[in-house]
């Protein structure tokens, strides 16, 4: 996502609005956040019963539709 220009500079409700360039003073926090996020997504796809069951259901549903 690109950084916003005019709207961000003008500010959020009540004029209290920080642009990404202002808040990115803590690069460590930013890297930590994105690492946690990516790790969490990987763990989710590996461990979720929902994903496994849905893929199984999808295969079954496709078979059911194709074979009446």
């Amino acid at each position, binding site marked *: 996502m690109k950084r916003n220009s*005019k709207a961000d500079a003008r500010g959020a*409700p009540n004029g209290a609005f920080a642009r990404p360039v202002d808040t990115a003073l803590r690069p460590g926090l930013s890297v930590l956040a994105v690492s946690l996020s990516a790790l969490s*997504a990987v763990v989710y796809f590996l461990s979720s019963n*929902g994903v496994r*069951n849905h893929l199984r259901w999808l295969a079954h549903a496709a078979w059911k539709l194709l074979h009446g």
Partner: protein
Amino acid sequence: MNLLAAIAVVFFCGFLATDITRRWLAPGPGGRVALALAWFVLLAAFFFGTFFLLGFVNLVTGWPALRPSLAAALDGLLALVALVTGRRGAARAGAAVAARSGFREEARDAWGGLDGAGRILTVAVAATFIASAAMLCAGFPRGYEPRAYHLPIAVHAFQTHGLRVWDREHMDTFPANGSLYYGYLMGLLPEHLVSASNVLFLAPLLFSLYALGRWTGSDSSASLVAACGAATIPIAAFSSLETGADVAGIAFLGAAAYFALAGDPLATPDVLLAGLAAGLAFGFKSLHLVSVAFLLGVIAIRRWRAASPSPIRRASGVAALGACLFLAAVLAMSSVWLLRNWMEFRNPIYPVHVGRVSDAFGWAKAPGVDYLERGAFQFEWVRSPAEWFVYPWIEWHSHGENFKHSSGLGAFFAATVPPALVVSLLGLGSRKPREREALAFLLAGCGLLFAVWWALGDRQPRYLMGGLVYAIPLVAWMIGQSTGRARRAFAWVACVTAIFMLGVVLSKQGFEFAYRFLSLRQWSRHEFYGYPAAVDGLPAGSTVVNLVTPPDNWALFGTKHDNRVINQRWALRALGAPPTETPPESVSLDGAALRRLGATHILALSRTRLQLGPGVALTEVGRSEGPVTLPVLYRVDYREAWQRIGEASTPATSALRTPVNP
């Protein structure tokens, strides 16, 4: 329902909301966001407020006042007053035009700030829900709760022109804003369109999440990505595709949170809008009472702080006044339900009973319902209570229904919300007081809701849906903190996880559409719900006793919605059988009990053993088409004592004394 009156209601409410927004809510620095949310809250407040007023008249006097024609007359009168006094607000019309152009500018900037991944996500969310809504319109309303009680209560309210409870089953006694909304729509639109009408509430929900994201200090594109991602969370996405009350509830809660947290704490309109929205949220889902209490505290604290240079006495007064204004607005939008339950059950928050607290007020307890002893319900989603702490990554479900209106948080939630909670905790050390305050309030909201949800024991994922209102802005803040590569990585994580979940939603909807309509060709209502076509041909006002399952309640109102229906649970209780979610094996039909219910017809499975009591005879008048155990519609004939002499030899009744399909 008079179609013209129904159209007039929405027209006048729209006019009033627009007029007030233009005249009294001048756009400030964040006006473009606030005005759209304010308009939505005012529209709903006028719409529901009118019906509440008529419902109040009905409750107090017994007069059948809940009619769209009366609502149209009331709203029309208010609109006339607004029109006559309109000149005073003319000076602000120019400001409203400026706000509208600002709104377009905001949308342009949010879109312009997105990179490829963000744009794909935004378009995919819009396309998925438009396509899903279109598929829903081919069928009829779905969902367990909607068919079991939201929609039956909707039709019952407009049949009886009042807000008295449908029956005394505990789930039929909750506040019913959702039912009023659907009942009104049933008089305005075909049932096909009503089945997709809940999707509309996604728009204000996403808008309030976006606005809250902006309030945390996040930029427009990060807020947009977080809000769009929230729409892919299964409990929210699938709820929006059923005619339930959860999504509308959190949409209003989001608006309330926006005005309470981001609004000017000393501005009366903001406090009142927060209260109106919170009251409406409670009316859709009474569980939001916890958030109402939280937002009350937020308003008091923010007003105290805003007035804090003043002497402590004055600051206390300012805080107390704000709390009173908020509560007054909440009560304006919820008191009708509290009054109804007080009148009917001597407990305004019936069926909720909070142990000694309720006892101290003398509030009655619902028989057989104890919300503090429903701990076993959670084992549909987890195998042990500790598993809740890893539920976002495990998503186990006892019946394998991992993604539905009450199950699943999805990939976007797992990838963003837990990290956002951790990073926000670290962000509390920020040197910016405004940012610190925003994070603290949002984390407190998440924490309080989770703590109450945990303490109450009835742990179902969707009962925590209100927490999204506080958690998603934290996601927006977290994404907004990053720049460069980290930001691009965030965009792709959000895009991949959210689009995967959209795939889940679309594949389920697409399969159901293909299977039901293209394969089974269930185009008609009776085929869709699987009930005998004869139900649709019953004389208006016929009373059908449902002895199949609770969701069949809705089907039995027929295509014209002019049948009366006796709720399955209530019917079983009245006939002395234990309530059950599945079709009963056997039911004794007592003539006196059936007369009290006003039964003219009964729907039961062909395998259900119906034991006829004295004075009752049944005649089959229709059955569903299908191969196995089928719902059969019977006509109830009441016989006086002198008519019962040859009863045993009547073929219809003697056949029913034994199972039809043993």
